[in-house]
């Protein structure tokens, strides 16, 4: 085992952060345990559940599957970086309004995956949303209200950009 520490620097939710860590440290542990951004969760150990999903350079990434060193010099966005209670991101607003969460544990990962999905497919059908959520396991909701939330967020975001287009 290589115990030599290595420096990892990332931009986390807009802020430059760095730390010396073991090269084997997972990105999810770097974010949660070193940087104290505990909004992203761990639900499995085999990359199935997607509860740890974050955005790395804009693309949704299961952060339990990436070493922190691999993310060096990248831009990372987690649930803490998309909106605040006063100014919610449309995906947050939609999850709230559509009852897209119960225990809330998978929710940050599900929202981050949805943000990337909607950036690729801004006007999806319900079937496409269900396919798009394939990387997420939720045990509470049966998914239907998550699907409603993603559809509602798409509408909000499209209406939003339409308004901006007019200005």
């Amino acid at each position, binding site marked *: 085992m290589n115990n030599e520490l290595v420096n990892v620097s990332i931009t986390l939710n807009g802020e430059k952060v760095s730390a010396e860590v073991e090269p084997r440290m997972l990105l999810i542990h770097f974010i*949660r345990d070193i940087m104290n951004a505990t*909004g992203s969760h761990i639900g499995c150990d085999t990359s199935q*559940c997607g509860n740890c999903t974050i955005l790395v350079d804009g693309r949704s990434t299961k952060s339990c599957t990436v070493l922190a060193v691999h993310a060096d010099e990248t831009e990372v966005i987690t649930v803490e970086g998309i909106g605040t209670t006063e100014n919610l991101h449309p995906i947050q607003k939609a999850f709230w309004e559509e009852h897209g969460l119960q225990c809330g544990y998978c929710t940050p990962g599900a929202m981050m995956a949805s943000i990337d999905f909607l950036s690729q497919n801004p006007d999806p059908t319900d079937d496409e949303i269900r396919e798009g959520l394939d990387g997420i396991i939720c045990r509470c909701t*049966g998914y239907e209200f998550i699907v409603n939330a993603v559809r509602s967020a798409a509408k909000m975001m499209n209406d939003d950009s339409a308004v901006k287009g007019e200005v």
Partner: protein
Amino acid sequence: MEKMVGQRIKRKEDPKLITGNGMYLDDMKIPGLLHASIVRSPHPHANIVSIDKEKALKHPGVVAVYTGKDLEGKINPVPTSWKVPGMDLIETKQYPLAINTARYVGDGVAMVVADSKYTARDAAELIEVDYEVLPSIANQKEARKDGAPQIYDEVPGNVAFKYVAGEVTDEDLENAEVVMKGSYNTQRVAPSPMETRNSLAQYNPGSGDLKLYVGSQNPHIHRMVLSEVLNFPEHKLHVKVADMGGGFGGKIGVYPDEALVSYASMDLKRPVKWVETRNEHFQSANAGRDMMVDLELAGTKDGKITALRAVNHANIGAYLATFGPGNPTIDFGLMLSGAYKIEKAQCTTYGMYTNTMSVDSYRGAGKPEVTFMLERAVDDFARKINMDPIEVRRINFASKEEFPFTNAQGLIYDSGDYVKALDRAVEKSDYHALRQKQEELREEGRYIGIGISSYVELSGFGPSAVAGAIGFQGGIWENSTVRVHPGGTVTVYTGTSPHGQGHDTTFSQIVKDKLGIPYEDINFVFNDTRAVSMGWGTYGSRSLAVGGNAVGLATDKVVEKGRRIAAHLLEAEVEDIEFEEGVYSVRDDNSRRKTFQEIAKAANFAWSLPEGMEPGLEEQTFFDPSNFTYPFGTHIAVVEVDIETGEIEILRYIAVDDSGKIVNPTVAEGQILGGIAQGVGQALWEGVQYDEKGQLQSGSFMDYAMPKANFFPKIEMEFTETLSPVNQLGSKGVAESGTTGSIAAAANAVMDALAPLGVKHIELPLKPEKVWRAIQKGGAES
């Protein structure tokens, strides 16, 4: 003003959870925190010859290593909390770490405590355990046979208990016009909350207090049981639950792991945290179901069912779980006749020790299993006598005029209108058109199936005297304290323990309607044994029916005390004081009024109170309901089976459920939807796999098929509303109904699709390979 109860209110819980401000157990850091990792047996059954912990102890960062021998005499065995009178239970000793013998894959044999979780796991790898492998067995029916491996010397034939409920004689069956036999097994599944189990113990050597954060659905039960296990007094043990990522029954149990972490914290005088990995969860978190049921059904040619006689071999695992003995005997055994008026029913249960993880409550806990048995059997019976399965159900239902209705084994159902829910489901699905469509498609070589399931559930646990009669080691009442602050805002304490169900929102709706104060002025405290005087937790769909009603009743007492203060201040008779929309006023003279906030201040300041009244505005209620509640409904699933591949597509799913008064339709729908996903998951995809010796083969989400979003169509659902007479709200349980109704609906749909091919039975889960094989064999399979 419109009442809040009954409205679709957005959840109060959500703003923190959608912004990353939730505080789950593993999010917590405490100065000096240590991390534990548990070494588990890789063998289903083995003697522990020796454990070499030297290498681990020398590993930098390791603080302690414990084995079963180290803890002998220091921690007591973890007991079961459900001992049904008359079951001749043989309870074996589950030591927090196995001392001489490991009895399932995942049985703890050592624990490492270190300064980081990486170090703890590294060191766990360094512990060398020398095992002597023993004969082992996983299947409960095999375990009862002569010559089967014996799991305990003191348990002959591996039978932990035998329990008989009801009586059906051979004559009852022999004299019937139609007799049918069938096996209806529900396979073992894993509850699988997305947050695994965990605990964080913090012993304070100065005060002698032990604070334990634990993934628990019932912190007061954890306190009570762990107090015994640890020889530690209840009043010094403070159990709390952080935000929790689901439970589904898997976090009812009091487990060895939290006792170990607590012990280590006391021994090392430092906080210790343990978080289960998903792989560990599959090994060592209580599983659900695993009942093998052989049923005899007697009936008449015109569709009346006259008797049911079942033998249930329930796999209870290597040790008895907290509620383990109760699920097959009471929840399953006493609900044998379901929604039907059947004269006679008998259930004989064998609780079987095997070399597998323990089995405890999982969403529905006995009711999904018995509903699966009964509803599959009703369909088979309908097919046998060539009658539409809807008609057979209609003929046998207890009618709404018969409530309170006493079932074949003596349970008294509170209220019901089974025909109404069935009719709505038939109408909503356009059942008769579906049948016609099915015929047409068969001509084209396409196989669609229509599956019906009409269920009734024992929920809303419940009257405590009954708990005593059935050997549940605790009460099942609920308590609530409503504390009014001087400014008129309110903090409410209650003993149910939410972890996703939305109690904060729905219970606030109840309080808001009664007090008329702003919704934002109501705050709830749950999940804390020091804040909440006593309570029994969240399971058995009891939170609203028992806890929500306790909240309502305590709030009523606050209103009444306020009324007496208002009468005093307004110089009026108490009977003349009206209370509406948060204002006390004198009847016929609205100008004489006091707001609730003014009364709150007057009560807390106590400058002028009625003669003899104590200061303050705070009331507590203990609500022990007179009966359980019995939600019911009918689900209809429509599937298409591709007979070339065995693949099943769910085309439609219709759910009509009745949970009495619905407080928040959106929240209730969420419960039904989640429940259906788990029930259909059991029918079609999920399954914990052991080989015949008990080696675990499904140790991760790669091997265990969790339902995903694209497995389901949109669910078509609605509620009928038949009030319960046993509580103020008229509410019944809702959280388990979706699961209870759906296993049979999905399975019946598949069997209906395959009926023309001669396929009569396939074991759950109905995976494509099994379905394909059954189709190839046709009638030969059954």
